[in-house]
């Protein structure tokens, strides 16, 4: 089963904190991959907040195709960050280029509304993905301002060493890391969490038994970003995106969509009338577990939810200004050892733990009582 380590903080911190937390949870993952998504970037990116960062991997051939495509699309390259690759025993041979390229928008998009710019970025990412997917010459994981993604096959600690993260100045205020336990699907970079789309990100553990109906529902929205699904967990990110961005629902309704209440329980909610309609209309998005979902939204809010059966419990704990959301308690001990453990939150089936941006406040929203 995958292990999840998310940390959100008021101050910048190194992704090594997440990696070390994953290391303490090692019994649960088989070292088949590491995924890292960083938001609110510090270090070399601190001064380039408004510019979209394209994260990915490519071959030499892919690099040429990518450069040509981005130039034609009108994007101006501002900066390139690349991990300092170090040969590590047991790791696969390094691919040609691991990169995070910072671009400036095409002139015609500089003053367009954020929504339109976000659509442009997503469409570019999809086009690049399609260009390089068949021969694996290009992998792109995210293309969004102030967000960076790194993924590679291998043991998380080794991958971190391979990327030189222990010596790098790369930092962020929100970092999600997943240590992958390969189950049903072949080891493939696009199957590695966290998944990201237009500012929304999530990672999950446990298999998704309702995957096929959910995937069919999402692809039926005919939204260009709802593709991929190399992992059955990618749908959790897209459900978050669909409910929050496309439908404009407040974040707590994500919980109401993926784990809807019973009719009798809905009666106890003030918004029962709308909740009934939402439950009906989004019936195929009920996840049915067993999963814990950890995610963030464009404003930096982080959250954790469970499926109703709570077969994959997670834990949230920390101090004001720094909180961690982990799949295991030992991961939390590693990330934030000096916290008051009695205040740790083990969300129950109706709970949604929400941490406001900059880790200022933790609230437990209860689905029954809203």
């Amino acid at each position: 089963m995958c292990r999840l380590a998310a940390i959100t903080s008021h101050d910048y911190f190194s992704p090594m904190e997440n990696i070390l937390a994953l290391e303490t949870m090692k019994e649960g993952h088989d070292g088949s991959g590491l995924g890292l998504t960083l938001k609110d970037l510090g270090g070399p990116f601190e001064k380039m907040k408004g510019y979209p960062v394209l994260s990915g991997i490519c071959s030499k051939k892919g690099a040429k195709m990518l450069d040509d495509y981005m130039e034609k699309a009108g994007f101006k390259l501002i900066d390139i960050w690349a991990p300092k690759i170090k040969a590590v025993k047991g790791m696969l041979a390094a691919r040609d280029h691991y990169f995070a390229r910072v671009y400036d928008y095409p002139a015609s998009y500089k003053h367009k509304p954020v929504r339109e710019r976000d659509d442009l970025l997503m469409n570019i990412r999809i086009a690049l993905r399609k260009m390089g997917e068949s021969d694996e010459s290009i992998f792109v994981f995210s293309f969004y301002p102030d967000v960076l993604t790194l993924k590679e096959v291998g043991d998380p600690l080794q991958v971190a060493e391979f990327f030189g993260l222990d010596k790098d100045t790369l930092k962020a205020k929100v970092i999600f890391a997943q240590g992958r336990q390969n189950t049903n699907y072949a080891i493939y970079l696009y199957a590695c969490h966290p998944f990201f789309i237009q500012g929304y990100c999530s990672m999950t553990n446990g298999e998704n038994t309702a995957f096929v109906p959910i995937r069919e529902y999402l692809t039926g929205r005919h939204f260009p970003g709802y593709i991929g699904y190399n992992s059955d967990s990618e749908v959790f990110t897209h459900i978050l995106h669909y409910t929050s961005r496309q439908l404009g629902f407040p974040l707590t309704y994500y919980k109401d969509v993926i784990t809807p209440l019973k009719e009798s329980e809905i009666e106890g909610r003030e918004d029962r009338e709308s909740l009934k309609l939402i439950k009906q209309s989004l019936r195929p998005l009920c996840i049915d577990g067993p999963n814990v979902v950890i995610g963030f939204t464009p404003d930096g809010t982080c959250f954790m939810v469970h499926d109703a059966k709570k077969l994959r419990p997670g834990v949230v704990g920390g101090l004001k200004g720094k909180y961690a959301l982990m799949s295991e308690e030992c991961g939390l001990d590693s990330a934030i050892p000096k916290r008051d453990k009695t205040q740790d939150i083990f969300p129950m089936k109706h709970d949604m733990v929400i941490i406001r941006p900059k880790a200022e406040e933790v609230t437990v929203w209860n689905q029954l009582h809203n």
Partner: protein
Amino acid sequence: MEPATQLDYNHQLSLRELPYIIRWRDDRCKRCGSCTAVCPVKAIEPAVKVQRVVQSEGPVPTPTASRKIVHVVEQVTDIERYCTGCGTCTLVCPNEAIEPEYNPQNKFLHFKNRGGEGYKRGGRRNDPSVSTLDRLKFTRISMLTDPALDAGRHEFRVRTLLGRILPADELPLKKVNGNLVVTHENGKFIPPVREIFPIMIGSMSIGALSPPMWEGLAMGVTYLNEVEGLPVVMATGEGGVPPRLLKSKYLKYFILQIASGYFGWDEIIHSIPHMVEDPAAIEIKYGQGAKPGDGGLLMAQKVLKLIASIRGVPQFVDLASPPTHQTKYSIEEAVAKMIQSMSMAWGFRVPVYPKISGTKTARAVLNNLARNPYAAALSIDGEDGGTGAAYNVSLDKMGHPIASNIRECYLDLVKQGKQNELPLIAAGGVGKKGNLAANAAALIMLGASVVSIGKYIMQATANCLGDEFNRCNLCNTGKCPRGITTQDPKLYRRLDSDKVAERVVEVFKSSNVELKKIFAPMGRSTELPIGMSDGLSIDDKAMAERLEISYAC
């Protein structure tokens, strides 16, 4: 040389031509006459025979021939009185001296067209082979990576929705203090939706069924809702509803059917102002799986006083519903206007949906409905559906199997992203071999939202004798030996409506448990796994390809 008149049996049938041959045991029979009295078709009769017996008594052989009169039970070879194999004779025989035996070599259909009239009967398609539904297996079993659920411990919601469901992006919602509230400002129509148990009782009319049978089903369904908390609904079939039920609070558990004969609708329309509850839904019947393209038919012998009064017709006349709704000539009229009219009659508070027979053209109807915001569902009745009366050729040869029909319709909706907006109701051959829950679950995973049953419930609750070997199938004649499809009080008094109701309750309670036993190991409990096709496999590659599921052997 015998006279030619005695040799000329050429135009008589032998018993070998008939579908069932009576095995009668002389040594066990006490000549009580029960069997011949009860036989619904008079296929057996008492006969007096002369027997020549050679006997020898005494210490040395001294054979003497004598003739004696014996009484026997004899099967007739008259094609109009063929043994249907119902076995009522066996039921009443105190000594187990008689039973019909199926004759696989029969040439029955070669002869059952006397008077130039095609063979008519009730029942189902006479095909005893294993159906596609029974070949589907549930192969995605949750194991260590996603632990299976416990059917007995976990909370399950085996419920589905009947009614048009708005797409999420059309919901009339607005944000108020971080909550979503329904806004009625723009007058958006919110279609009525019912939450029901995913197996329903399909349309069987109160003329096709006897009063105790219909009553038993209705009582069972009401008990399930009122006492067991299981929201099972039942469709009435064409032919109206007892006036008392129309005005009762239990009407909400019934789907009223309107078909091309409009029988019973005068009473229903006049009752609307007096109704205290809305019906569960309105079903507009355009077709029936057992006899696609054929109208309904209630034979004159079944139109007794009660039926005549409910339907608003004279007694003892054939009640034929035309194959099509005669007042409509196009799909727009036939479907859109009917749906509008029926919706309007109940103030748009009741889901209205059409029922068609399984057909290659189902997708055309579906796509029309998908564009009609008032269409509440589409019910498709496959070739294995049953009927009270039809030509044998319609029953046996017309129609489309339900599995691939429902699947292609569902996948069509998936392409349009409307699979959650227009529920599909699947019927026809569900529970053919007794596997009700498994067949229902398979159809749900292929894409059905609701599964409808007819023959199964008659067999399971009232011991209907019919099967795929053309056993009994006398529903059209009004001579149902079980009292299920007859209006003859001498026959239907055999049926106890309380016992039928009890069995209805047992059937639905057990299928509720069995559905959980299927869904739990597949890791599904919160929502019905509609379209969860990765859970299914079949042992035939061509079928797997057609149904877009995996092949497993």
